[in-house]
């Protein structure tokens, strides 16, 4: 590579990408031997639930927010959306606790934990706006109650839970976009950094040398 080429932003980005996340890391065919526990399946289960949430949500969006009140098929698709969200949260919370007890932020993996943590908060916001756009008694009541919380800290001026139009847009556009970007970043970070080694895997000089060969 010539010097002028090295100065290209594009070349720099490509270089960084190839160094940090070559395709062999993105789609590996081996894993360290310690990746052998059922706890590792909860990340991909969370991701799969998010897939089902998005797929059922897209169908609901195409038919419009009132469809599920009047159509049996609509109500079934609403149920798919409802239950995939419940599973998503169950899997995510198990995943979170698992990663906590593994102290999976070790070895400069803080960004992985932090994108996960922000994704957790973003998921709560997305689900909350979802409960607000049910357009039934539950959503009436939640908007009435929740307005006090947001108003109490001034956020109500910008985030108006009693404004169905605003909540619908945030729920189907802005928040899923944020959550999607966070999830992609999170998973790419996991692939780029490799799965965190067990606690104390490097507790002695000898062990460390052994592991590095």
């Amino acid at each position: 590579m010539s010097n002028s080429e090295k100065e290209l932003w594009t070349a720099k980005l490509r270089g960084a990408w190839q160094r940090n996340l070559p395709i062999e890391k993105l789609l590996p065919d081996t894993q360290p031997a310690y990746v052998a526990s059922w706890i590792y399946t909860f990340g991909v289960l969370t991701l799969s639930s998010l897939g089902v949430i998005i797929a059922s949500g897209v169908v609901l969006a195409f038919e419009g927010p009132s469809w599920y009140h009047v159509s049996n098929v609509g109500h079934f698709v609403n149920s798919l959306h409802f239950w995939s969200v419940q599973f998503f949260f169950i899997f995510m919370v198990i995943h979170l606790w698992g990663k906590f007890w593994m102290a999976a932020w070790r070895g400069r993996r803080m960004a992985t934990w932090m994108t996960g943590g922000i994704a957790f908060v973003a998921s709560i916001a997305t689900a909350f706006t979802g409960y607000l756009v049910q357009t039934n008694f539950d959503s009436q009541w939640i908007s009435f109650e929740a307005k006090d919380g947001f108003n109490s800290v001034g956020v109500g001026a910008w985030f108006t839970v009693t404004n169905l139009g605003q909540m619908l847009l945030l729920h189907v556009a802005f928040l899923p976009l944020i959550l999607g970007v966070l999830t992609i970043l999170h998973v790419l970070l996991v692939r780029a950094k490799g799965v965190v080694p067990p606690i104390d895997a490097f507790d002695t000089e000898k062990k460390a040398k052994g592991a590095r060969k």
Partner: protein
Amino acid sequence: MSSPRIQDLESQPWAGRTRRYDIIKEGTIALLVVTLLTIAASMFFGSPDEKQLTFKSWAVTAPADFYQTAAHEIAGSSESAGYGAPYNSASDGVNVGPLHLAKIFGVSHPVNSVNDFVVTPLSTQVNTPEVSAALKTWNVSDLKMQQGWASKYDDALTKANGDQAKIPAGALADFGPVPAMIGGLLTMAQSGSLDAVLLSQGNYFQFDNTKQTLFMGDGNYFNDQSTASHLQGDTWGMMNETGRYPGQAWLWLYSFWYQIPPFNNGDQHPFGANADAYIMVIMGLLSAGLVFMPFIPGIRSLPRRIPIHRLIWKQYYKQENL
């Protein structure tokens, strides 16, 4: 936190033993499992959809409650009329110590309970001669007169437990056009037109339900339904759903604070009375704590102290004799 040397070792590509692993196959199987689980749950349990309440259903099933709430609105004694920011400046709202975050952005969503809930909706209708005349009298009178009539009627009605029949006929002159106006509003609500008028506010397109929600929340009808569905905040309502369905269970920690002293006592100062604001701040801090967990001394070393990782990586520790 471990020493920088260990951090370095832990961040390097693993050079120890490996095993074959098909990431795409695992992903496909997981997607299939979750899809089937979701379909099964949807078939067996369905999902909740309790019908929404309307002003019509309110005025028809609980006319006395609607009538009395309307009296509170026109007299400015309802909860929403005294709310403060972001709807009006009737009060300071809640605070966190010296911070009045509630009114930091001022009245961003103005709601005038007298005009928005009573006078303007009535003006959109072709009214009976009695209601028309009452509305005309109201509109040509000054604020002091209007407030005098409305407050007197509101008080009299409260004293009579919401029963118009128990108000002495001799007192009627004190109330001016107010009883006729509220009667007109009740008829309007019973016909269903109040729902449409409150939402449209003179527009064609409309997305904002703030005014309806505030008005309906001022009465007992809405509150009673929510109590019956165990949705009140003091009974973990934030995380419940109607029927026997799971709600937002992940809000348990947020709901939790509302169940314990001092936050469950609205009369306690400064915390109970300002619970909404304090709990928001607490949850904001806790959320930040979750995100920044790897940097919090003490907490970040818990996983090392409480050896659950021994179970997770049991096989590895055994093979490596660690």
